[in-house]
């Protein structure tokens, strides 16, 4: 069983370009674009206005790209690698476990790299220009384990949301996604109505602030675990789609 599952993990890493090459290449590009902008701001501001600008730079979503990218990696893993693996004589169970482990390894690996980058950014005072890409306000300003938890946990969330959606698609095709989308919309609407009728928006806002980034990512992890378990059962009876 161990070797059976491990070969699935390896299968997700065979094409390193997809899981490592492209993400880092795009991230480097985004970083260079940001670096240029920070340089321009740094060169054209002085004193109080520079301090204000640097504070504003803290509200960055520059590294958000990589989380969305991992959602797409998860979609492809289920939509394309799943039929390939079944063709190689893999059981659905092995595929699900191996894929979950691959996602966990990627999340922890990227989480560690992002954590290290966030500390470098901090120690060099924003790459010497007061810039922020890996130390966004609120989300990544704690000790190392808190940052690792936030980065890796958020990434797991995107992996498993992507994989459960793709599993629904592989099993029930587009009709499944329509039903899933409609269900989520109805639940979200219900919650909004509930919050509005009970006038609890302010309380919700306060609880978000109180939860902090750790708390929010903690809830995202709960969602990720539910998505992972749901994805497992959806995929357990799925049949591969052929080209």
């Amino acid at each position, binding site marked *: *069983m161990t070797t059976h599952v491990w070969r699935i993990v390896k299968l997700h890493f*065979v094409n390193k370009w997809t899981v490592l090459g492209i993400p880092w290449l795009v991230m480097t590009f985004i970083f260079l674009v940001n670096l240029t902008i920070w340089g321009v701001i740094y060169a054209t501001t002085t004193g109080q206005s520079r301090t204000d600008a640097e504070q504003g730079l803290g509200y960055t979503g520059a590294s958000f790209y990589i989380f969305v990218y991992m959602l797409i990696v998860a979609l492809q893993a289920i939509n394309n690698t799943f039929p390939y693996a079944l*063709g190689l004589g*893999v059981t659905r169970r092995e595929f699900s476990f191996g894929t979950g482990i691959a996602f966990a390894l990627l999340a922890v690996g990227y989480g560690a790299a992002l954590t290290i980058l966030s500390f470098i950014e901090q120690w060099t005072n924003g790459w010497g220009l007061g810039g922020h890409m890996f130390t966004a306000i609120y989300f990544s300003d704690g000790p190392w384990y808190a940052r690792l938890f936030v980065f890796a946990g958020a990434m797991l969330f995107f992996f498993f949301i992507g994989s459960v959606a793709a599993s629904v698609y592989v099993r029930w095709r587009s009709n499944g996604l329509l039903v899933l989308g409609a269900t989520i919309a109805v639940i979200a609407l219900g919650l909004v109505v509930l919050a509005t009728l009970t006038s609890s928006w302010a309380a919700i806002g306060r609880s978000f602030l109180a939860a902090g980034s750790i708390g929010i990512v903690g809830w995202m992890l709960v969602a990720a675990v539910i998505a992972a378990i749901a994805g497992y059962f959806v995929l357990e009876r799925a049949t*591969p789609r052929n080209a």
Partner: protein
Amino acid sequence: MTAVIEVEHLTKRFGRFTAIDDLSFSVQEHGIYGLLGRNGAGKTTLMQLLTGQQFATSGDIRLFGERPVENSSVLDRVCSIKESQRYPDEYQAHHVLTSAPWFFPRWDAALAGQLVADFRLPVKRRIKKLSRGQVSALGVIVGLASRAPLTFFDEPYLGLDAVARQIFYDRLLADYAEHPRTVLLSTHLIDEVSNLLEHVIVIDDGKIVIDAEADALRGSATTVSGRTAAVESFSAGRNVLHSENVGGLSSAVISGLGPDDRATAIGEGLDLSPVSLQQLVVATTTSRATEWKESA
């Protein structure tokens, strides 16, 4: 002889459509089996069911004596190659040749390398950019080099030119001779593979219409042709699989003619000619007048 595949009363429905209708058959160890039939006859569905990729509606499938669905100990001994195989996005051929050996304990890397050269497969090109024939070649390479005790080829040749198809047939036969295994090959190009096959299973409309040794089939039917009246009187009471009328002339594909029957036919001024495997399949799947299982 041990049965590698045993299927009993297998049925698969998609909604109201019955793709596989109460099939029962078995496949013995060490042989090249042809799974023949028209488009939509159920060949691909059957192979998907046998390899645990589809779930049966009812009936029983045993591979090596066990059910294949979600069963690693069975699936480790099975390789299934289909023309329509999906590959991960951005994969190049060498990614497949790197990962496939992890799944086939008997993988022969030297054979794979030789086949890559034979088929002139560009391994450093994205699979999406390969021609249809090159994608087919990739599947054929995996299927042959896997040396899986039970290998399924589902129309693996689409887009392959005549030279490449001949390489596939030659390599399959040569490797099969050295490393006996069980191969189930579904194909439309019946004449091309007819010398390769030891056993033939023909399905039509999800049902088995022929299940017989290839040698027995080859001599089993005869085309009788001549004037319509003579052909009709000769055909009466005989096992007619298929008949055609053009003008005042007719021809009929008749099975089970003995030496006496032949002499009678010639005496009545009729022409006799042998029926190839392909003609036989065409005759049995266009008008299914007779159950062939017993008569062949």
